[in-house]
């Protein structure tokens, strides 16, 4: 019970911490909206030339565009790591690792708070703008809410692992650049994954990145049976959080037992 209160409080703090940077969130929302409009026109041109591409109608493609623009904030599509990355570099992580609360759950709670705030500040504006300026389809499946949260958790699981790599690499900037490239490309942010050719499509659709953007968007559009989409996301949640827990104990061993 006390533990639950702790994690609830961490969730609130994650929310509040990000709400102090209101100007940054609004600037992000504005950028996401403007790029959403640009992307929408590219997609409209594409779909007018080739109707029914990737199995989407024109309206579905435009909906997909603004929906995924709204995912950039909560799913951290540009792949920035978690806040404890700095504490790894400074060595303060040693103190976090010996706290009587697991780092994984700790940062998950905080990150869910962050995502909740960014959903309000950075997902709603582009979605509303898209609905006003173009025609958009509302959510077909009520399971979208679940899929959205699972997408955030998959994104967290991935970024947690990326952040922890700093324990083994002196400079983690390379890993972060690679992560944001992978996430941006394979999540469906650039183009719906259905447009990817052959094996690239197979790889992209099986990747955890698809679970962050493509799958929740498809659930919104009702494009596939919700249970298989949610099952796919759940698989990546379990896999990434499991790996995260293993990596945490490896990091703790390295810090506490070997001393770096």
């Amino acid at each position, binding site marked *: 019970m006390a533990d639950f209160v702790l994690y609830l409080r961490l969730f609130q703090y994650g929310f509040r911490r990000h709400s102090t940077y209101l100007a940054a969130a609004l600037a992000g929302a504005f950028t996401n909206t403007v790029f959403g409009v640009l992307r929408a026109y590219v997609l409209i041109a594409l779909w007018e030339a080739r109707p029914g591409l990737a199995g989407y109608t024109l309206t579905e493609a435009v909906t997909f565009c603004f929906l995924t623009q709204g995912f950039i904030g909560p799913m951290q599509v540009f792949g920035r790591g978690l806040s404890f990355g700095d504490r790894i570099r400074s*060595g303060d992580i040693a*103190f976090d690792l010996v706290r009587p609360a697991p780092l994984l759950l700790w940062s998950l709670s905080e990150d869910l708070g962050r995502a909740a705030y960014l959903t309000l500040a950075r997902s709603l504006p582009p979605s509303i703008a898209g609905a006003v300026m173009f025609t958009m389809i509302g959510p077909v499946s009520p399971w979208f809410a679940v899929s959205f949260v699972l997408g955030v958790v998959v994104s967290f699981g991935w970024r947690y692992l990326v952040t922890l790599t700093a324990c083994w690499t002196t400079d983690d900037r390379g890993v972060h650049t690679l992560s944001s490239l992978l996430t941006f490309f394979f999540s469906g942010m650039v183009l719906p994954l259905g447009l990817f050719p052959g094996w690239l499509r197979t790889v992209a659709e099986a990747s955890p990145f698809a679970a962050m953007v493509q799958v929740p968007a498809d659930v919104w559009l009702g494009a596939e049976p919700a249970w298989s989409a949610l099952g796919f996301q759940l698989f990546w949640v379990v896999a990434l959080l499991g790996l995260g827990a293993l990596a945490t104990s490896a990091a703790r061993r*390295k810090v506490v037992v070997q*001393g770096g």
Partner: protein
Amino acid sequence: MIETMSLGRDFKVRGVVVPAVHDLTFGVAAGEFVGCLGPNGAGKSTTIKMLTGILTPTRGRALVAGLDPARQRKALARRIGVVFGQRTTLWWDLPLRDSFELVRLLYKVDRNRFGTRLAELTEVLELGPFLKTPVRQLSLGQRMRGDITAALLHDPEVLVLDEPTIGLDVVAKAEVRSFLARLNADRGTTVLLTTHDLGDVERLCRRVLLIDHGRLAFDGSVAELRALVPGQESIEDVVAHLYLSSTRAAPRTPRRTPDADPPTVTA
């Protein structure tokens, strides 16, 4: 209250085993106020980390409040308070008050006890004016008082401080010192601190441990420490003399290089 028996800790630096602490045996009784001196790289912080369960010893053992720090870290955390002068356990973006609330939940401190204790500490350490300020906006002196409060909210029997006065101005230093002295005198809290500030030692510590090359080089009162080097007026000169002579007399052991400092995770 604190007991170490042939405590030792090695670090592996680029494949070479470097002992940071060799063979350290000492005891601290309940209610004592002990200062730990030693040149940079002598093994003070490594010792503190072993006593608080952050590092596992390579050799020997330690007992703090009757517990083995490495094995019973969580139980120990509820009975000791730890402050690292160069680091903070507070949450950077949160108001000080919220950091304390997290500490309360983390260490499962009863809400009423927490309220009373925080009120006391707020008064004594004069935290009132900046309880609602985010930690990143605090001055170093304010942050240090915040860190000390966070370490004492669960009313520990032992307080361990690693360079608590580092970087503080004279006024802030005096405030921290008088608070620690009162804590020790009024509540009987056992205090062990490491420092390079000999003012801390002269004003606070009834007993001094001098650690050099990972070994105990001296254990006694400040007066006895002075007596070791006759003819030196200031305590600074006495300690400087001891550091220098021990470096010459002791067999050269490999010293740790600064980039291999234990807390950094990057090996």
